[in-house]
């Protein structure tokens, strides 16, 4: 099993609901608390597993605003795990989820240096590295109804721009979405083999042109011309 996310850059509206739902769930989950520094002050900062950035792609008027959520890609070649000197970072063999054991982490930041996607953030209050767990404390919880055994970000997305599933299963929703829409991983040339994929924005539909008949002035001119010729 290779669990991961598909993010649809076409339908994401950049509402940040996924980031807030993530923070809400995980602050009280297995990696909680996700501490903040001066949360009500002038410069609030803290740990987030999911961050949304907004880009303009292309030049106006042929441009598009793209909202870009980024969290851990749960890479197949997770270099963050390989560089970890303490063995605190690990990738689960059974489902490919990359996790940090806070009891072993010494907070050296080396894994954050190795991650190209900015997925790892140090919890400054606890002194350990934290990252997206793919809601590992949710997706296997048999006390929850089966439809809710999904990461918090996926459940909350109002535009269904996030899909969760098994990339090893060619019939899963994520595999089909990637195949149909040409899903791409980010910076595959670095060799990390990220599991998460991004669906590119669809080509914009041609706007229907409004057919206008001849104007009143033109019709009068035509009538005059015909009259003069006669």
């Amino acid at each position: 099993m290779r669990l991961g996310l598909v993010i649809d850059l076409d339908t994401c509206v950049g509402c940040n609901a996924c980031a807030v739902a993530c923070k809400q769930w995980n602050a009280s989950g297995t990696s909680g608390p996700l501490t903040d520094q001066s949360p009500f002050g002038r410069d609030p900062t803290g740990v987030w597993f999911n961050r949304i950035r907004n880009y303009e792609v292309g030049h106006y008027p042929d441009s598009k605003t793209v909202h870009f959520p980024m969290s851990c890609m749960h890479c197949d070649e997770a270099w963050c795990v390989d560089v970890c000197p303490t063995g605190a970072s690990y990738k689960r063999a059974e489902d490919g989820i990359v996790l940090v054991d806070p009891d072993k982490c010494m907070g050296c930041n080396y894994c954050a240096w190795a991650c190209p996607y900015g997925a790892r953030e140090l919890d400054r209050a606890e002194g350990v590295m934290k990252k997206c767990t793919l809601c590992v404390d949710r997706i296997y919880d048999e006390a929850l109804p089966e439809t809710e055994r999904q990461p918090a970000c996926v459940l909350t997305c109002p535009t269904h721009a996030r899909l969760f599933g098994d990339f090893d299963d060619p019939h899963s929703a994520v595999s089909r979405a990637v195949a149909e829409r040409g899903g791409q991983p980010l910076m595959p040339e670095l060799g990390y083999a990220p599991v998460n994929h991004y669906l590119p924005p669809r080509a914009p539909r041609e706007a229907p042109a409004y057919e206008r008949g001849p104007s009143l002035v033109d019709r009068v001119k035509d009538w005059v011309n015909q009259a003069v010729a006669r």
Partner: protein
Amino acid sequence: MHPALSIIAFTVTTGLGYGWVALGIVLNLTGVAGWQDANAFGWTAGVSLAVITAGLVASTLHLANPRNAWRAVMRVRTSWLSREAVLALVFYPAFIGYAACLFADAGRAAALLGWLTAAIALATVFATGMIYACLRTIRQWNTPLVPANYLLSALALGGLALHAQRELSAPGGGAAVSAVVFGLLMLAIAGKVVYWLKVGLPEARTIDVATGFRMATVRLLDVGHTAGTFLTDEFGFQVSRPVLVLLKAVALAAGYLLPAILVAEGHGAGRALVALLLGYAGALVERWLFFAEAQHVVRLYHGQQRA
């Protein structure tokens, strides 16, 4: 990259110590310049061990959770940081064994342990360099020039320490050592210049490659946070080009050229100590530049066009 003073002090200081020990042992075993006497060797061993230990202690200062620092030896198979930690620990018994054999006049054993100690010392410096060189996320570091420069820096700085130690123990008469140190300083300068030329090459990754919109221009509209984050603090460090050029000139002139002139032109303990201090300060500046100039690819997602 944020230039953390503890990491800068750690890499430069341990480099000095390991370079000093390795160079001293190799020059002794090859017969170029022996330890002058038991007394000179005794205090050299003590001071160099103290320097290395101080550097290693400095390395723990940047840890957010130093209680777990002992676990850093657990992943030797994959992590260069782990390998460095293990080599740093193995160095102690090897060096102490070498010193003991030397004092006990056990020639063969001393030679064997001497080569082993020098190899471990240099391997530790190499591992330190590889910690940075193995990161594909930072173009400026992901080159074999990084461990090469770490080794050259350590040997040059260690050479200055060895030279100062010999001048302090018995002034004059160390022409061979002076020549070796001068050569190492010149090699270190060459390494630095080649590295800086390589870093200056226009081979950066771009924001459109990072976001996957390879056929279009991409511009950040909003980064999504109003204050700094861990990522901007760690990776957002920026230094202006004139400052970079100035500091590079200072590092080369004060850290390598001046000490080389001082070592080559004449003798004296004071002179040698000034050369050592200049070399140490220059190496600190050079190591600060190493971090300040490095640009992590995550900066692309934060709106930088090239990194």
